[in-house]
């Protein structure tokens, strides 16, 4: 009986199936890789050089965020506390364990400090957790002073974290989820949305 499909057509179909199958495998594999939790920004929890516990500081001791991260109400960058700020308290507050040794956290801190004078000697190199792309320009002060947002709205319940992890993806879509909401009740400036949705608001 005569072949229903030519040899050439058959080869073509086999090739197409192979290619599509390959693409499917590639797609599935890539998606698995990309969406694997450890590769995602959300949940990123790096080990820091100094085991600073926000739970103890911001939670138990109720130190306000702005005491250390004062840049958040001044300008674009919230900043990190200088070693000097840490020593504001830790010159005097030096918790020790039952044997009289400094706790691991204190020991780690004192590597950056001259024990005789309590003056900082070298800066601490932290692992950056909340990182936006270089082409996105975020201004902290607009959100803290302008929109009166609590830090936890974007950074999550930091006062419960022994080690800080990223709670929100900080992707543009996530930002726009809030920016496109209706304005807050206390706004009197007649704005249409909670935040700007213009490109130039964040991209320069």
């Amino acid at each position, binding site marked *: 009986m005569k072949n229903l499909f030519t040899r050439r057509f058959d080869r073509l179909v086999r090739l197409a199936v192979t290619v599509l199958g390959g693409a499917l495998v590639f797609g599935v594999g890539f998606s698995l890789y*990309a969406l694997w939790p450890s590769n995602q920004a959300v949940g990123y929890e790096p080990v820091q050089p100094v085991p600073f516990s926000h739970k103890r500081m911001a939670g138990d001791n109720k130190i306000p965020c702005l005491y250390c991260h004062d840049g958040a109400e001044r300008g674009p*960058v919230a900043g990190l506390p200088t070693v000097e700020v840490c020593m504001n308290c830790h010159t005097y507050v030096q918790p020790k364990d039952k044997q009289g040794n400094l706790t691991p956290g204190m020991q780690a801190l004192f590597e950056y400090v001259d024990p005789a004078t309590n003056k900082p000697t*070298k800066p*601490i190199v932290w692992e950056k957790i909340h990182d936006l792309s270089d082409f996105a320009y975020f201004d902290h002060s607009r959100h803290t002073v302008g929109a009166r947002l609590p830090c936890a709205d974007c950074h999550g319940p930091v006062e419960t974290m022994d080690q800080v992890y990223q709670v929100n993806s900080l992707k543009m879509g996530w930002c726009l989820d809030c920016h496109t909401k209706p304005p807050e009740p206390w706004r009197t400036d007649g704005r*249409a949305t909670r935040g700007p949705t213009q490109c130039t608001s964040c991209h320069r």
Partner: protein
Amino acid sequence: MEKEFKSKGAPPRVTALVVAAEARPISLTEGGRARLAIPIREEPNSHRSAEEQKVDGITRRSAMKFMGATMALASGLAACVRKPPRKVISRTSQPEYNHPGQALYYSSTWTDGPFPYGMLVKVQDGRPIKLDGNPDHPINKGTSSAAMQGSLLSLYDPERLRAPKGAASWAAADQQVRGALKTAKKAVLVTRATIGPSERRAISDLRSVYPALRHVVYEPLADETRRSVWRELHGQDGEWLPRFEWASVVLAIECDFLGTDGVELESIQSFSGTRVAETADDTISRLYVVEGGLSLTGTNADHRIRLRPSLAASFVRALRDAVDERTPIDAFAAANDLDAKLLGALVGDLKENRGKAVVVAGAGLPKAAHAATALLNRSLDAFNKTLEWNPQPAGLIANSKAEIEALVEDGVDVLITLGVDVVHSWSAFAKHLSAAKLSVGHGLYLDSTLSACELRLPSHHVLESWNDARPRVGIISLCQPVIMPLYDTRQEAESLLAWASEAPDAAPHTRFRDFLKARLEAEELEVGPGMEVAWETALHQGVILGPTNAFVPAELDVPRAEALAATPLQAGAYELVLTPHSSVWDGRFGLNAWLLEVPDPVTKLMWDNAACMSASTAKRLSVETGYLVKLSTPDGSVELPALVQPGLADGVIMTALGMGRAYASAPDEVFGTNTWPLIPSEGRVQFDISVSPTGEETSLVRSQSEFSMHSRPIVLEATLGEFRANLEAIQEKRSKEHGEPIYEPFKYGGGHKWEMAIDLARCVGCNACVIACQAENNIAIVGKEECGNGREMHWMRIDQYRDPVSHDEDELSFHHQPMLCQQCDYAPCENVCPVNATNHDDEGLNSMVYNRCIGTRYCANNCPYKVRRFNFFNFQKRFVEDPVQKLLFNPQVTVRQIGVMEKCTFCVQRIKGAEFEAARTGSEMSDGVVRTACQQACPASAISFGDVNLRAPAGPAEVAVKQQSARSFLVLEELRVRPNVTYLARLRNEAGEEAPAPKKQAEERGDE
């Protein structure tokens, strides 16, 4: 997939293969197929077969596949996966006022250039990222020049000398110098002219310790010829400063006072102020420029008379005779083939405006011309009215080459050059350096002078230095460092102190600061309790102002002046006018890429200089643009490319000095041609040169080669008479929109609406805005070759247009038009972007989102103003990867990578910064709180920028007022794109119309 790729039709111009996706672009060939293309700098391979076109054994097809996969992977990764981990480093302790992400501003002084201007430095995170003028400085009042803006680049230049060479350390070098100076019978110190009073004190202290040390000043572009004439005729040292704001008639004889002659920032400010007329009662000044070359001032003239420089002195003498009514000017006009009517009008204007006219003669002219000019100014009663005497010029009196030669020719024990590249402009000096027992060179780079020295000592950059300057009597300008020294360098004055004392450098970097502070407190500052506060206040302001009484020098010695003015001059068939380069000056900025790449305002040359000549001269010599010509003078000869530049006088060749430098690491890559061998011993004009084509050709790179408007109303202009007779004159010349805009109107919410107005009556075309924009917005340098391909990245450019004045193709009137993104309301670029990377925002800006852009370049294609610049290559790669060069970037602006489009954003980072500040402090944004970089730099205050929606009492904004002007027009408005940049037309004050008058009347002058 299996088929061999076959090209159809004509072979493409360039084909080849590449593999690495990030380094090479994709382009379309004539056939419309997307092909991989190499940069045009490599040889076209169109004749080679597919097999031959393998690169590293990879064929085109496999490269395509690989590239496709890489792109998919790269974009996929970027979208879904966390960024690579980064560190963030806290400080150890917070310096006062220093908050992360926020900038601090420091006052300082720019001592690099020929004149010390006040400078305001923007410092972010401990490093300077932008220079601007100091608003408190009485001379430049917050404005800046292109060279000043460009100085920032040289701070971070990786080619800077980083440590002393020729000695193991500074201590060893100091010991060697001290030892040599102690035993020297003859020692010579060569410095620049503009050194401040404290450094001069350090030199005199050094000389008192070593009496054998002589100090000479080498400043080849000092206006010494002119100044020596004044010294001779008035019996005292000083200079006449033209006060253009009091002048209704200005006559410039070969004098580029708006460009390179004198205190140009002050001249531009005062002159531009006299050019604006808004109503029928207003009047403006009249500028006559008489020159053989073509200067920036010449392009801004109301009337330009082409006259060979050899005739300048006799012309001024003839003018004086005509003004004093001894001999009419017609004789001179007839003898030299000039327009007698125009000269008659000039004489008439000068006669009628005694006391309100000023004549300035260029620093390059010989003594006779300056003597004649002094006599003419005397006849016009200009002294102490439109000319002000300054008994303390900024620079020391410069020694001539002959004087220095006489001192060093018999061999010197110690020869020290301090911050001056002598060998570049005087190559014979190198042999004096080699002949000296100890030669010491102190400079920023390992330039030709330092290379000839035994000890090569690296200098601080001006941003790392303590210093002071006296630009004028009554003003002390302070310079403070804004960054810790990047390398093991030392300030030159500090070296002087180290050599004068035996004590080792116990407090490096502060010894001169203490010396300076002590001198100021003793001599300049108000002494009293709380002296520390006085010092800090002075530093904060950047200037210490003292009394500035009107100084009147001795009367002009008329007989001596007449004798000097009558000095005969022999001229040959061809004359040569040597000018300082518009941005590189005498060569001191000759390694600054920003200043090399910015197009010269007159010739539009980039990275090069040329022998300019008029069209008829070129015809006579059978020379075209690009032909190499040999210029021979009695002092030296040079070969350089010719440029046919209509507007020069016939028989005059003009070329810029200061080019021809190369980095020590790449000595073969020379930028331009060194024309210093042509300089005469007096002045900057050679009166008898020979010009001959060599038969060879080269290519010149210019940003513009087409200067005609082709009858399109791109730059509108009217004469003052036309305007006063009919205020609608400009409005009638505007083109009408052809129908309705084709796009949907953008719905503005009524918030801010940012618009700009550029007053062409004020703009002189100086390029300050271009470099200011480059510094503010991290704009890349592309190099000479890519400039040749039209790929320079300047967001703002100055377009030059020429109109014929008569049938003579060398008689032209020139127009300068700054062109930038017009932020059109109906932007043609926004609608064609396939990925929506460019949109309109609710404040009137056309936004550009680099991360969305995929590089289709459709937007640039659609832009009628061609203001969109594309990153054809990773132009910033070298900067981004270098740990020092990347400190230069403004962190508020994205650094663009390959493949994205960029354009002027109206300094959106400054707009947002001001908005955030207003939101933070709860204040309203007033007019002037947002100033774009170009607006801030402009010495002519030509640019207005602001929010047109600003209501009273804060408003209306200055820009809204300017837009209502009768002189306003838009460019290409018939295309109905509704640009948001309004231009205000320049008015030419033509002779024969109503008499001009200055902006300030004589009654207002009073006692200043």
